[in-house]
Structure formats: C-alpha cells, structure tokens
C-alpha cells in the first residue's frame, strides 16, 4: 500500500511541477516587436525645402518623438538640415548645419540658434536667401505649437542678414501667404 501511495504522490508532484512549468511558460509577458515601439514614439512633421521650380516644397517625414517640446523642435530642425529625401528639392546648406539651441518664449517667438556653417559658402542671391529663411520659419511654425515668429541666432549672435540681403536682426513673422509655395 505504501508503495502504491508513494508512486501516486510522485506522479502528483511530477504533474504539479509540469503544470507550474507549463503555466510559467504560457504566462510569460510577450516581448514587444519593433513595429510596436515605433508606432508609439514617432510623429509626422512637415519640412519645407527650396524646389528646383523656384519655390518651396513640403515634405512630410516620420521622426522619432522626443521628450520635451524643445527637444522635439530640435529634432525637427535637425531633420530639416539633414536635407530633403525627395528629388527636385534642395538642401538649405549642402555642407550640413549644426542646430545648437532652441527656445520658445511666452510671446510665441522661437529662437533658433545655428552654427556658422549656414553662412559658409552660401549659394548667394536674394531669391535663394528668401527661400532658405522662409523654409526655416515655415518648418518651425508648422511643427512647434505656439511658435508665431522666429528669431535666428548664428554662432551665438543675432545676424543682420543671413546671406547679405534680408533683415534677420528682428523676428521673422510666420509667412502669411503661400506665395513661395511653387513659382
């Protein structure tokens, strides 16, 4: 009798152990796939670039969402200065531009601080300067909530102009018209 009980107890213990093992495996938390993470932490932004038709073109791009609003604005600007992905659009500065700081004040003025690469070897000409400035302003105003105008800072200083023509020593307003969107 005792031998029979011993066998029964051993079988029961083995079954319980198997059950525990199987339940543990069954209820292990699922490992999230990469697509799931991307979907949770990205956003779409509108970037503006000079087009070969002479105006501006808008390029929608999915970017990784950052933490604070300032970090998000920095991300948008870095994407802008990475250049366009679409053909027919031009980079604002083919050599690349460093985005140093971003700050939005309570009055809606966005301060965008860039390194001096943006003034190194510019294409020149009023038209390209107009387009470059408007591309930056439109991109910031479109993507940063509360931004209504933009003050450019280059190499730590407020510049008189970007490339020698148009005033940048005061905040540039958000473009009121779509005059530069295509020519």
């Amino acid at each position, binding site marked *: 009798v005792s031998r029979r009980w011993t066998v029964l107890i051993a079988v029961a213990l083995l079954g319980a152990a198997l059950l525990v093992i199987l339940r543990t495996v069954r209820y292990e938390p699922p490992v999230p796939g990469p697509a799931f993470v991307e979907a949770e932490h990205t956003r779409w932004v509108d970037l503006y670039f000079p087009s070969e038709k002479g105006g501006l073109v808008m390029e929608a791009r999915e970017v990784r969402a950052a933490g604070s609003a300032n970090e998000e604005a920095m991300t948008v600007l870095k994407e802008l200065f990475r250049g366009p992905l679409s053909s027919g659009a031009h980079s604002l500065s083919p050599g690349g531009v460093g985005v140093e700081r971003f700050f939005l004040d309570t*009055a809606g*003025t966005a301060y965008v601080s860039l390194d001096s690469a943006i003034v190194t070897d510019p*294409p020149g*000409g*009023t*038209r390209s300067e107009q387009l470059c400035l408007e591309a930056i302003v439109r991109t910031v105003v479109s993507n940063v909530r509360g931004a209504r105008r933009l003050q450019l800072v280059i190499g730590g200083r407020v510049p008189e102009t970007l490339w020698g023509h*148009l*005033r940048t020593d005061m905040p540039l307003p958000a473009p*009121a018209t779509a005059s530069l969107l295509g020519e």
Partner: protein
Amino acid sequence: MRVLALLLAAATASSSAAEITVVGPGSRREAVDTWRVGDAEYVPVRVLSVLLGAKQLWHAELRKMTLEWEEGPVILVPGSHFVIAGEHSLQLTAPVALRSGEMWVPLELFKEPAASFSGLGLRWFDAERVVSRRGRETSLERATLEGWGDTLTVFMEIAGEAEPSLRHEGKRVSVHLPGASAGVGVPGSLGGGGPANDVRVVEDPAGVTVLVDLRGDARSTLEPAADGAVLKVWVTSQAPGPAIREVSATPTVVVDPGHGGRDPGATGKGGLREKWVTMKAARLLREELLKRMPSVRVVLTRKGDVMVPLKQRTEIANKERADVFISLHANFSYNRDARGMETYFLSLAKTDEERAVAAMENAPLAKEASWEAGQPSGELEFILWDSAQTAWLDQSQDLARHIQDLAARRGLGSRGVKQAGFYVLSGAYMPSVLVEVGFLSNRSEEASLKDERHLRKTAEVVADGAVQFLRRRSAG
C-alpha cells in the same frame, strides 16, 4: 539688457570727450561738456530742452522722457535708437542713454542728416562745434540758379524779415542773410552756370551766405522780389535779361554695387561673380546718369573690390543727402530657368492689415521688455522704425515702377516690382530701390551679364527710370 550693456560700456569705455557751445534763445552762449562712449558722443538732454524752449517730463512707469515743445512732444526712451519728434521719427546709430540720473542724447541728433529729418530745426557747425536752432524768423527756403552765356541769375526765396546785403570783391560775389538759416531742401552747392564756376550756400552761426565764384570780371545787382531776392551777375555791360525758367538744384544719386571684397555674393556656373557684375553695372550706371543729367552727382558706395558693411552703405547715402539710393545686385535661384530683371523696394509689412498684426504681435514683447528688463518698449521700437520708413515707401515704389516699366518695354525680361525686407534699404532716408539685374543661376543670363553691351542696356534702363523719377519729383 541694452541699458545694462550701455552702462557697462559706459563704465569701461566712456570719457569726457570735449566741449560744445550751445547758442540758445537771445544768442546766449553756453559751454557744455560732452560724454563719449565708444564712437558715440553725447550731450545732456537739457541742451535740447534749452534750444527748443521745452519742458522736461519724466514718465517713470513708461521709462520715457517727453520734452513738451510747441510743435508736439519729443519722446526719448533710454536704450532706444529712436527719437520721435512730433510727426517725425528718427533712427540714430547710438541709443539715448541714462548717466548719473540724467538723460543724454547722441550729438548725432544735432548733425546732418538727422537734424534735417528730425524737424526740430537743429543746426550743427562742425568747425566751431556750435549747436543752435534754426531761427524761425528768417530762412533761405529755396535757392535756384539759371546760367546762360554771360549772365547768371540766382533766385532766393526767403521766409521772414530779411535784410540781405550784397558784396562784390574781385571774382567773388556774396549775398549775406544775417541771422538766417538754410531751409532743409537747400543744397550746399547749386553748381555753376553762365559766368560762375560755382555757386554755394554756406551756413554759419552768423547767418546764411550765397557765394558765387566767377570765372572773370563781372557786374552784379541784388533786387528785391515778392518772395525774397534775386541776384543778377553779368559779364558785359549789357543788362541781364529776365528770368525764363527755374532750374532745379543738383540732384545726388548714390549707387551701391552689392557685395565686394571677401563677400562675392552669388557665383554662376561659369564662375561669374555677383560682386564683379554689380561693380561693372554701377560704373555703367554712373556713366549713363551723367549722360542724361550732367548736373547729377553720382556717388558710389564702393570704388573697387572691397567689403563695405551694409549699414555703412546707407550711411553714405544719408551723409551725401542723396535724392535717390540704388543698390545693384544679381540674383540666384534654384530654378535654373529663372531669368529677368526685378526691382525691390523695402517691405515693412505688405498690407496695412499685416502691419496692424505685426504691431499687435509686438505688444506682449513690449510689455515684457519695458516692465521686466527695463528695456524700451518693443512696440514703440516697431512703431518708430515703421513710421521712419513709411514716408519713403510710396516714392520708392514709384521709382521701382519707372525702372521695371522700362525693363519690360526694352526686352530685359521684367519680373516686376517686388517688396522685401532688405537690410541695405532699411536705413535709407530717401527713395531707395534694389535692382536685381539678372540671374547668375541661369547659364544664358550669366553669359549676358558678362557682356558689357547687355549690362549697358540694363544701366540705361535704370538711369532712364531714375531720371524720369527725379524730373517728375522736381516738377511735382
């Protein structure tokens, strides 16, 4: 912040500069010490209130001072580059300053061109370092001359009671108006004509003198006229004939070849640089202007391949008291097919509505600046700057239209009149335009811009447009 910067600058770089003499009401003279901060020389605000006979009022809440004067208040804001005087507003290169509890104004306010544009009637005599105010009683409002063959007639329009006196010594004739001042529109030189090499108007603390330098012996008379006096000079014994028509004073056109030196501007695919195009075009424009209007004085902001800061370019135009400022540039577009000529004038904001919005949007900035940081109001800055520039916008647009109409008619590919916020136009106190003569990004237009015949044709269009504008303005 700006006030703080100014105070820091004052602590490090200020010094008692020199002395000036203030000639106040009743010809009372007073020596006043000035104060120098960097390049700027300052005088205490009481100099201004003495000359204007104005009462000083300090508005602590608004951090501004008003001088109550008979023709409207003069508003001074510490740290601001603007001075508003009645309907006039003026942008100075140095800000109004506070020092030891007293307001100081840049001496620049008393000098030309600021003195003329302020409407305060201030006069500065550089050699004597004397500052006074234009007497309201007597002034030479207008001086024009007509020179034909052996005769010269100088018409002097005088406001107020005047007792002009004539002196004739050898080859120099002079008409002196004691205690008078020269009106804002009276140029220093009227040019020459007939028997005169040169006719000049000289103003000093004693009054105004019209000086005629003759080529040889001549006779002269001074005759009273309904609105002033007429000086007649003739070589032979014949009596001078009657005046037939007025000839306008010598106009001045300042031509600004864009870029230069280490700033090449745009560069075409073929290697043509904007700074070369603008220099060549400027020289041709000068030639064409002189062909059309021999009396015109043309001043170039740069003489060769040198870098001239943008601010300095309009300062030259202001200093020369130019009638017109024309900046020449060549354009560059990402669109390789873009071509043609376009003329810009300054954009403050494109429509009245946009201006109102711009002013409104400056209001929160203004409050923050004035209440928290002690800075001048951003709103006030905007309004002052805006009104200083608005006066010239209509005329600048008119000048731009003259040029572009001709460009269209002569097949230069007109892209029309446009507005933009050009830095080089924003400090000019006169009608001013920026002409884009063509696109260096277009291969065929780059080739045209290399060709002197094409550039001359462009210069002819700009010269004709400017001359048409000047004639219409002097007639109107």
